């Protein structure tokens, strides 16, 4: 059985970045995308004492993930910031919420150029599919 990787953790973020670069669906749907995206947990208190950060950045370019950055500075930002509660991120990673749907219902708050983001909405679906391939255990379920 494959070892499960803890979410959120630096190891999980790095694994995610690698799986995005290896995803044929993401490679083709993310082609043309240029900007880093920050993923933020809106209720970091649920991670208190367990995880030392509440955000991470993926440096995405042309359908490839070129690197990651773990963020604990609340002032840090990125051209695009997607914010959701910890429980909603879990649902998205677990495939229980469609990411497009989550953005439409406000479960994911979007900051950045929305017009551009909408043009890459199929990349968002591919990103979630890549996340779902990671064998994940969650920090609150240990």
């Amino acid at each position, binding site marked *: 059985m494959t070892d499960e990787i803890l979410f959120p953790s630096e190891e999980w973020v790095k694994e995610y970045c690698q799986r995005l670069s290896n995803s044929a669906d993401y490679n083709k749907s993310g082609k043309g995308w240029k900007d880093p995206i920050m993923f933020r947990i809106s209720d970091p208190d649920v991670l208190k004492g367990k995880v030392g950060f509440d955000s991470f950045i993926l440096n995405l370019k042309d359908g490839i993930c070129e690197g990651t950055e773990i963020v604990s500075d609340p002032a840090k930002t990125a051209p695009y910031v997607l914010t959701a509660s910890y429980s909603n991120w879990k649902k998205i990673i677990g495939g229980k919420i469609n990411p497009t749907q989550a953005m439409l219902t406000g479960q994911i708050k979007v900051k950045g150029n*929305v017009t551009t983001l909408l043009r890459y909405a199929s990349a968002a679906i591919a990103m979630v599919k890549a996340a779902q391939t990671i064998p994940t255990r969650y920090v609150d379920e240990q």
Partner: protein
Amino acid sequence: MSLYELPRKIYFQRDIFDDLSQILFGEGMNSVLVVTDNNIYAKWKERIEKAMDGLKWDIFSDVFPEPEIGYVESVASKFSGKGYDGIVAIGGGSVIDFAKSVAVKISDPDIDLNSINPFTPLKLKVKLVSVPTTSGTGSDVSFGIVLTDSEGKLALGNYDLVPYMDILDPSMTPNERGIIVPTGIDAFVHSFESIASNTSTPFTDALAEKAIELILKNLELAIKNEERAKDNMHLAATMAGMAFSNSGTALAHALGHSFGSVFHVTHGTSVGLFLIPSIRFNSREEETRKKYEAVARKISIDSLDSLIQEIERFFKRVGQPTKVRELNINREEYIKECDHLAKLALRDSELAFNPVVAGEDDLRTLFQENY
């Protein structure tokens, strides 16, 4: 989708339009702006005046197809601050989209229409009432607006743009085959795309499946102006609109938008052209294939291949092309444009709802193979 937005009321009755003032009074609307186009106004001038009897109303009747954003803004500025309770859109998709845009600007004159997106509430200060005069666009019940700017078509959307009330009066629909067919095909494609969409639910599937059944049975008779068939087509178009507005449209729309904007082909014809290739492409995914097979069973067909053949026969009967060459577009000119078409389609937000991720190469191949 986990959110369903629908009009508060839908009236469906032949000639119900003639009682519109009573309906609007009943909703507390005493002062309204009527938005329409010159063709509709010329045809229904007396009827509109009679239907508005007793209300305080102004009219704007110079809407053109695919409204340009600057034009919408200049028109909206003329009607701002007049204290309307509602905006009544009488027309096809362009008129309804225009009225939605004017409602946004009247409610917030500082807003940039380009910035409308599904994530930021609009808080309209007027109630939108739609009276669709074609059976197909679904704009009368949907959250979308299609406008144009210097870079081409802009597909914008927000749930606050779902009209408050929809008046379905089939007597307002045209008799011309050239309008009935592409709008009917548009509704047919909305239905299939809603079903294929990765955010579809049994709620939207039920509406879309019934719409498909109604369109297959009624479009040919509607072309012959059979009254009952036109009634059914009007209802089917709205059901398809309610379906796709609460799930999504997908690949055929991305391909059709791109093709239509480059070769200047009507929206319904363009999306219809790419319905069968989209069904074939998406049916590689098992879950989507099963959804198409469920549609087939609903109309007493035993397999996906037979469903595709049935659609081909249906399109032939009503005069909807299935290949680009049927539109007398030069092969070399078309193939030369396929790269550009694929790039445009790739950036269409409708692809977000497609169940199978389509990259630029997939899109180019789909265009090339459909000549």
